[in-house]
């Protein structure tokens, strides 16, 4: 049987690598902003909490945070599959499951944020 040749040279990877770092920086900055806002709330109640999220800019920043989490997670989890999962079919299936889950989570996050 002829062994399948190993082909590498997919000409991508740099954008993901930059994105992983950029999203990490954004998440760190958002965490600081979020912590400052949360601690400056007059009281810890549902009203003040939803009041914080009713601010359009805060909603936008929060949604961007969730998108960063999911994009960051996509690259990280994809890397795990690439490192450890050898059969190509299984790897592709895991990639797709991860992708669908994360896109679903993003939609869910939007729904939660805009309901507050």
């Amino acid at each position, binding site marked *: 049987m002829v062994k399948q040749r190993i082909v*590498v040279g997919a000409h991508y990877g740099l954008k993901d*690598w930059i994105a992983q770092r950029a999203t990490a920086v954004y998440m760190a900055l958002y965490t600081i902003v979020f912590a400052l806002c949360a601690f400056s709330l007059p009281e810890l109640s549902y009203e003040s909490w939803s009041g914080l999220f009713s601010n359009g800019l805060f909603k936008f920043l929060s949604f961007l945070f969730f998108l960063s989490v999911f994009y960051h997670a996509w690259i990280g989890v994809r890397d795990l599959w*690439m*490192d450890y999962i050898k059969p190509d079919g299984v790897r592709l299936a895991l990639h797709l499951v991860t992708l669908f889950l994360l896109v679903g989570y993003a939609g869910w996050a939007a729904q939660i944020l805009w309901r507050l």
Partner: protein
Amino acid sequence: MTKRTVHFKIYRYDPDKDEKPYMQDISVELEPSDKKLLDALVRLRAKDDSMSFRRSCREGVCGSDAMNINGKNGLACLTDVDSLQQPITLRPLPGLPVIRDLIVDMTQFFKQYHSIKPYLVNNDPAPERERLQTPEDREELNGLYECILCACCSTSCPSFWWNPDKFVGPAGLLAAYRFLADTRDQDTNARLDNLEDPYRLFRCHTIMNCVDVCPKGLNPTRAIGKIKDMMVRRAI
């Protein structure tokens, strides 16, 4: 230094004789002049000539006697035998197929090395004398050209263990940057294209085992960072 006895635990495997590898306990008396682990191994082989390992220059230039010494990759000829905790556990370099005892098959390692075109590409007619560099440009090659391809780094890299057929590995990437950094080379774009791949370059997760073990004190992680830096500069 006086005469002393050192104890070893050595990985033994002869595919013609042994069903599976085993660890052999063996001791050897060293002469006062024996300083390095390689000296002890040479004494050992005089005692048991079936024991196999590679060696050549015995001074850290050829890179033949790389092995896993007490759990850490290194060169036997550069390791002080008296600095090691006994019994000294010797295993072949991890992750490569074992040919016999401490000798591994380096084909995969050199395949990756060759894949980065480890030679100067310059299509200009050769000058009458050498192609010159400024001292500043030459400076950039320090810490790169000294690599002796002993494979200590690549075989200590988990990313290379999992994907030795796809990930170039720290040694190959250090060599790749050695030519990317060379002002006399004209193949920069093709070299970067060749590496822009989620496996070939981006399997490096900055674990830095390579830096920890390099017997020449080189820093493949920094070189890999500089390759990424060049790619980013090219892309934005």
